[in-house]
């Protein structure tokens, strides 16, 4: 960013840590941007005339006589229709070789939507994956993460969901993404001929960690432009939010803050909520839906990052390899979409909620039967039927390679019910049994 003539240049830095530097300066606003020898930095603390700056790409090589210039504004993004089809870095500068964006400059991380101006989400997002559409239906304006171990194919499933969902824009925010995964997404988007509705903000593992902190706000500022100004349905993909939280903990550590659980800053909940709560359904028809990824360590959801995330998001999706069928499935026990009741049985067929619950209950019975089997006990005929049911249910519905519409999903499930059970074993309202039970 060019230095303008009237700006005051400071050249005396008092102290430098790995991520921050401090100097004496006046007339500086909180959250304001600055450059330190050309590197972008942000004001994180002002105490009297001493200003502390967080340098995004790290302080390596910064001398005590570095030139510091305050820019008089918080981080911004230029928004216009030109964003579509482009790839940017964490500062919103193009990385695809294309021209700079012309548009209105807006501050990122802007204000929250007044809760009374929100509309209740009520539009189903169909993905074709029954583990999602049948058991954990997604709705526009929802925010939901995949909880997955690093070895699971979460980016592929997320990409699938994004390509199949009917949306106007897909905005990908990549944080600490491997270059390989970045190329995967780039390739997929280009080949699907969907490039004009894609926007990417990318921080790969090759980029400085602290820069990641700008990615979600950049992506969501672009999303707000299309959702508010253009009344579009925007889907924002954020991967991986655990890497984002790691960057938060680095900064708070450098700032000498007392860490709370798992070395994360005490403000982790509010920091994550500020991002996820940008998901919204506007009355004008525009919406922002967020699908994120939170990687886990060995499936541990009690770690501070997945734990706080779970309290903020409207459900979570778990992937699991099912050894009985040799496929990855959407785990029906641990996955949950909190907004599903807004559409299940209302925008879908009315038997949807009860069918969904009954199938999961029977699947749970199968899990008990499996434990019995593993412990060497005899199985009852009912146990054996649940096991057979579970295997077929897993293969025909839970597997991530399924692509059906919701009516087909319900019909397949009723078919499995009547194949393996009698009506009183499924505990569904009598009138639904009379309509849908396959004789």
């Amino acid at each position: 960013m060019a230095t303008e003539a009237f700006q005051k240049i400071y050249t005396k830095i008092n102290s430098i840590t790995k991520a921050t530097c401090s100097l004496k300066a006046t007339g500086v606003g909180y959250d304001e941007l600055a450059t330190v020898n050309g590197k972008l930095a942000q004001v994180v603390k002002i105490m009297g005339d001493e200003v502390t700056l967080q340098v995004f790409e790290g302080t390596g090589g910064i001398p005590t006589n570095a030139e510091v210039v305050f820019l008089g504004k918080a981080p911004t993004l230029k928004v216009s229709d030109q964003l579509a089809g482009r790839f940017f870095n964490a500062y919103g500068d193009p990385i695809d070789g294309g021209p700079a964006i012309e548009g209105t400059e807006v501050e990122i991380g802007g204000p929250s939507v007044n809760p009374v101006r929100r509309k209740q989400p009520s539009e189903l997002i169909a993905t074709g994956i029954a583990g999602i559409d049948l058991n954990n239906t997604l709705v526009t304006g929802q925010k939901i993460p995949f909880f997955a171990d690093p070895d699971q194919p979460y980016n592929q499933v997320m990409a699938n969901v994004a390509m199949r969902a009917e949306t106007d824009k897909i905005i990908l925010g990549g944080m600490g993404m491997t270059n390989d995964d970045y190329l995967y997404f780039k390739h997929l988007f280009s080949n699907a001929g969907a490039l004009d509705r894609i926007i990417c903000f990318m921080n790969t593992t090759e980029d400085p960690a602290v820069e990641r902190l700008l990615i979600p706000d950049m992506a969501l500022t672009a999303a707000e432009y299309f959702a508010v100004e253009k009344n579009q349905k925007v889907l924002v993909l954020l991967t991986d939010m655990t890497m984002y939280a790691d960057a938060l903990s680095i900064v708070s550590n450098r700032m000498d803050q007392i860490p709370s659980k798992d070395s994360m800053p005490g403000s982790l909940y509010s920091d994550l909520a500020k991002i996820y709560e940008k998901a919204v359904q506007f009355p004008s028809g525009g919406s922002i839906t967020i699908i994120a990824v939170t990687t886990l360590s060995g499936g541990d959801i009690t770690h501070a990052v997945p734990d706080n995330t779970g309290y903020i998001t409207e459900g979570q999706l778990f992937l699991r390899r099912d050894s009985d069928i040799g496929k990855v499935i959407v785990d029906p026990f641990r996955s949950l979409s909190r907004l599903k009741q807004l559409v299940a049985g209302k925008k879908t067929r009315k038997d949807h909620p009860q069918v969904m619950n009954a199938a999961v209950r029977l699947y749970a019975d199968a899990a008990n039967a499996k434990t019995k089997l593993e412990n060497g006990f005899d199985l009852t005929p009912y146990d054996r039927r649940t096991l057979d049911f579970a295997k077929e249910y897993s293969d025909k519905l839970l597997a991530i390679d399924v692509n059906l519409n919701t009516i087909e999903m319900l019909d397949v499930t009723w078919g499995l019910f009547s194949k393996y059970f009698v009506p009183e074993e499924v505990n569904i309202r009598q009138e639904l049994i009379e309509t849908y039970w396959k004789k």
Partner: protein
Amino acid sequence: MATKGKVTGVIANMVLLAVDGPVAQNEICYIKTGGDRLMAEVIKINGAKVYVQVFESTRRLKIGEEAEFTGHMLEVSLAPGMLSKNYDGLQNDLDKMEGVFLKRGDYTNPLDEEKIWHFQPLVKVGDKVGAAAWIGSVEENHQPLKIMAPFGLKGEWSVKSIVAEGDYRITDTIAVIVNAEGEEKQLNMIQKWPVRVAMEDYREKPRPFKLLETGVRTIDTMNPIVEGGTGFIPGPFGTGKTVLQHAISKQAEADIVIIAACGERANEVVEIFTEFPELVDPHTGRKLMERTIIIANTSNMPVAAREASVYTAMTIAEYYRAMGLRVLLMADSTSRWAQALREMSNRMEELPGPDAFPMDISSIIANFYSRAGYVYLNNGEAGSITFIGTVSPAGGNLKEPVTENTKKVARCFYALEQERADKKRYPAVNPIDSYSKYIEYPEFDNYISSLIGEGWLEMVNEAKTRLLRGKEIAEQINILGDDGVPVDYHVTFWKSELIDFVVLQQDAFDDIDAVTPLERQQAILSMVTDICRSEFDFEEFLEVTDFFKKIINLCKQMNYSEYKSETYNNYVAQLQELVATKKIA
């Protein structure tokens, strides 16, 4: 002359001010920056150096900018016209704000000063009045609201003049009171009260004893809460805290319901905004929104205001209690409130307590819960605040500071359990770990016996024992196998499953099953108890499983049917027939 200050430091939403005069702890000030006025509260004073927490974003705030102190603590304005309102944590009327996005420094009047109310005086000239004495009444949404003498009023006062019955604005003077020294006060319909101070103008606070019916069987039947009682609902995410809380707030037999959405999801508040104006109060037949006030400080709104929001909600509750009304206050979630305290304590560089929470977290929680309660007012009438808070324990681990400290003070404990939620046994309240202390109060026993008849608590305790026994046997069966235990064990196990499926589990999304009136709860428990007390004749365990599954299915169909309808009676008949096939006479 108001004290002024200048900004000398900024760290996130904590700001340091250098002041030129006297300042009180918790005093409110406004910092002027770039055309905005940011509200802030004093949290620490060190000589002329004052630490304030700002209730807004501090972006672009500069050193040297000015602050003006107001001379009062954070307070709310109380008057008729608050029902059905949506406030933020500082009692700004959200509907009066312009634009889709919240604007920094946009403060709106919580009251409507132009609205006309029909006022009826309750006192006459010469009558003695004390603090919170009823001097008149107006009707709002069919609720008889009282206009009261100022809260915290000291000494003996008498009515010098009072207006005649008629139409007035809340700002009109409706009475003049005078004390022995001849000092006069002009009263209108507005009260102001600092939110962090408990309003204690009542005669006494007895132990609460009256059942607060919620229509949720696992609460009313198994672990009842009472008018003026306190309870809390801890649970890992995804176990149904919010669904249970919404069910209680929809169905509870209260006059006023106040919902403090404290640091939770905005879409959950939107659900209330959207559904409550449509839903009907099962007790009065009027729209739920008419009796509801929402304090929405969702997780993306400023943290300091989140901390204030629970106090704002409690103070509004105290206002209605002083009118002799039954108030239900729900706070979701108190953990977010505690986290807000933690963030600020961290910025002030205080020595941390457990999990980096401030050391005084236990007394803060205890003081807050103790503001609830059943009270006899000075005029002999009764009012109550029932408080139910949810707790979001980190990692689902109940051994964390907020849960532990809440457990010390709340009298009802509804433990939501991951395992039950995974099995879709909703509401996922663990029947064995949960408790209600009120069930042990003789006052409650007397009250419930007069309401439902003798023997109710014995049936409840018997059901609890059966559930515990069932759990023990399930563990034995898991170790020894189905064939490794006597057939009797299976019968005992399935009797506990019957109680679980028919009494405890309830479908919050089914129109009929969602609300169970007390009379029907009594019928259900009696029916289940009858079956449990019966002896059955079985050859082998498979027969037991088969038999009880059929019974459970019939009972569930019954729960889904209109009470005492033809379908319902039909199921009753089928059930009796089925039970008779195996029952030993």
